[in-house]
């Protein structure tokens, strides 16, 4: 899959989703596929961001949701009416990643000397601390209520009329949809290019043999910080789109450890270190969570009649299913569905060397 073909897929696929929605409406189902797909795209960016840190540079990072939250919260502060900043969506789209990247540098710089498990523990801690901080800085973040309303993607009214054919709600959904898709495609294209440049090679070299890389003049601290800040910036970008899509920064518990684990699940199931694997993982898990399980819930409700019991709701089983999928993958195909060539080789070589 080349980046050109990704752009092509973008161009080909994007107009068909509203058609599904219309068909669903005709059948009596409120699908809102375009809105749900935005969530998939946002998580796609998040998984790709985690891939920069875990897949490319080999830094086991379990606090990705914190940077996601920082991006969302920065977007809220920069755009809501009650604060004087009013950057608007496009301003926030540029500033939120910068804020998240600065947070990444501040957290990353002192923790880069830690390896593997220790870095994971520090980043889990950071995620938990950040959630508590966001809840408690009530004057800034409005605590559990979240900042709202976050304005929608600003587009000129003539463009909006043309896209939505006069229907304001539909125009809103479609503009959000195309914006999120465009940002995702841009992120993937840039990362795909980086994979084959000096920086991408440095990431892999560092993951393979840090000491040898340092003896060749590569600065491990600097390269790790680059990966950490880059991943944080992309997470901030995802956070900006997330808040804009929800029109609120939401309850900070949305950015907790569960979320980070979910993103890691997507990455591991898709394939560490591989862009298309990351995208596939996001599409499978988040798609299941956002598109399939509400539909199944509905089906169960129709079949059983009364679905008030928690066990009768399909969505109550999601963590069980994710855990099962993860164990299944670890057992049968530890490199993921679409692994990067190198990561697969590393995973399969190690038992022989040990």
């Amino acid at each position, binding site marked *: 899959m*080349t*980046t*050109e073909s990704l*752009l092509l897929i973008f161009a080909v696929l994007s107009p068909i989703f509203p058609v599904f929605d219309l068909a669903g409406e005709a059948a009596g189902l409120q699908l809102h596929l375009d809105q749900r797909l935005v969530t998939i795209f946002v998580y796609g960016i998040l998984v790709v961001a985690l891939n920069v840190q875990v897949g490319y540079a080999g830094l086991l990072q379990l606090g990705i949701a914190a940077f996601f939250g920082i991006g969302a919260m920065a977007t809220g502060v920069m*755009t809501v*009416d*009650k*604060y*004087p*900043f*009013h*950057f*608007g969506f*496009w*301003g926030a789209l*540029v*500033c939120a990643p910068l804020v998240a990247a600065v947070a990444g540098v501040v957290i990353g710089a*002192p923790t880069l000397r830690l390896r593997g498990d220790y870095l994971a523990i520090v980043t889990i801690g950071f995620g938990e601390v950040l959630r508590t901080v966001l809840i408690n*800085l*009530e*004057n*800034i973040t409005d605590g559990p209520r979240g900042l709202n309303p976050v*304005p929608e993607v*600003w*587009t*000129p*009214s*003539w*463009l909006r009329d043309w896209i939505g054919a006069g229907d304001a709600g539909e125009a809103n959904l479609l503009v959000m949809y195309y914006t999120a898709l*465009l940002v995702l*495609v*841009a992120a993937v*294209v*840039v990362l795909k*290019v*980086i994979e*084959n*440049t*000096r920086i991408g*090679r*440095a990431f*892999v*070299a560092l993951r*393979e*043999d840090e*000491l*040898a*890389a*340092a*003896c*060749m*003049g*590569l*600065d*491990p*601290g600097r390269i790790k910080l680059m990966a950490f800040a880059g991943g944080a910036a992309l997470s901030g970008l995802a956070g900006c789109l997330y808040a804009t899509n929800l029109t609120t920064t939401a309850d900070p518990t949305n950015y907790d450890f569960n979320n980070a684990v979910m993103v890691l699940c997507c990455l591991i199931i898709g394939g560490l270190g591989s862009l298309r694997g990351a995208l596939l993982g996001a599409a499978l898990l988040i798609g299941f969570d956002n598109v399939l399980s509400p539909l199944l819930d509905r089906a169960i409700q129709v079949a059983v009649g009364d679905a008030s019991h928690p066990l009768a709701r399909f969505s109550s089983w999601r963590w069980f299913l994710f855990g099962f999928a993860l164990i299944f993958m670890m057992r049968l195909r530890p490199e993921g569905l679409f692994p990067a060539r*190198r990561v697969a*080789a*590393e995973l399969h*070589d190690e038992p022989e060397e040990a």
Partner: protein
Amino acid sequence: MSTSGTPLRTSSDSPLLRVRKLTLRFGGLTAVSEVDLDVQPGEIAAVIGPNGAGKTSLFNAITGIYEPTSGEVELDGNDVRLPMTGKVVAGWLATGLASSLLFLFIAAGIDATWKAVVKAHPPWEFTISGAFSDLFAHFATGNALLMLLFSLVGFAIGALGARAVWLRSRRTPQGVALQGVARTFQNIRLFHHMGVLENVLVAMDRHLRRGTVGSGSAAKSALDGRFPHGAWLDLGLPAVCVVAMAGLGWTTGDGVDDETLPSILLLVMLGAALAWLVRLTRRGTLTGSSRVVEAVARQEAMELLKFVGLDKRAGDLANSLAYGEQRRLEVARALATRPKLLLLDEPAAGMNPSETVDLMALVRSIRDRGVTVLLIEHHMRVVMGISDHITVLVHGKRIAHGTPEEIRRDPKVIEAYLGADDGGH
């Protein structure tokens, strides 16, 4: 310090590498004890000694992997540790100031400060100068002693922490490598799951970053008017548009009445961003100049592979190479950093006699490229055949130093290392 072009040869009076009284202790064990070593530019020098004599430890101390317990390592008359400059001290102070600011806000209460500064007025009455006067007014209401104390503690933590990190990273493998020392490893440490050519390219990272790849006319064409402005043009236009739009949002709020200007900005921004993405996919590098630099670097890497006889294997994975080939790839990778001094740690280990002969020729041709070579070796035929000077280590101490002839005749060496029959070859 020479960072580009052909390695420099300095005048022969001053040694290229000068090690003085180097001692390396691990707990109670002294691995290297007060070793002196001079390597003259342009020579092939060797360190020999029985197993456990501290040869590899000496290499690790020279290349910055271990911090010596005491002693000096100088390259071209300069200490290999980073010099303490005004910029470094300024960095500590800046870190201290940033952290003291954070601590000041914590003492004043981040939440309360925000309330007093941003939420004190309705959003449309907010001004930057007003915000600052609100900020100082808020600080004035706080506990001055607490805030002073917190700021000082914050400064101390930031500045001392930055200093501690810098002191610990004064001597690093990458720092020594950047001064022109490259090495190979006793147990081969290639990037096994990268390609052969990629292994060499990784070592050229510094030159790729600075655009100093290639030599002569190739280098000139790589840099000719194309470096390093491409990225700024690519991203500058969308950035200007976004800043302008954010600025409009600031001054007029979100309900923009006249949409002409923001519409144009949005379309220009999206157009420029899309055009950039399409160009990215076409050329495969982030900027136009990096594409040229990359191409020249690949050419240079191929020349290095040809030099060690691996140009036919350029596309293979490094771990698919035979043992002797892996050793030669390690040499090519080390040469790609354009070192002044190349340290080879047992280059002939595990090689058969004909490979060993090839290796000796390779080491000589490396020297003829202007790279000084220091090697550890057990094969006496190799050591005696190619070395200009030999240093003998036993139990971490230097017991002899001289030309191969002198070493061969030295009774201490014969007793300690070569054995009674003057053997080994």
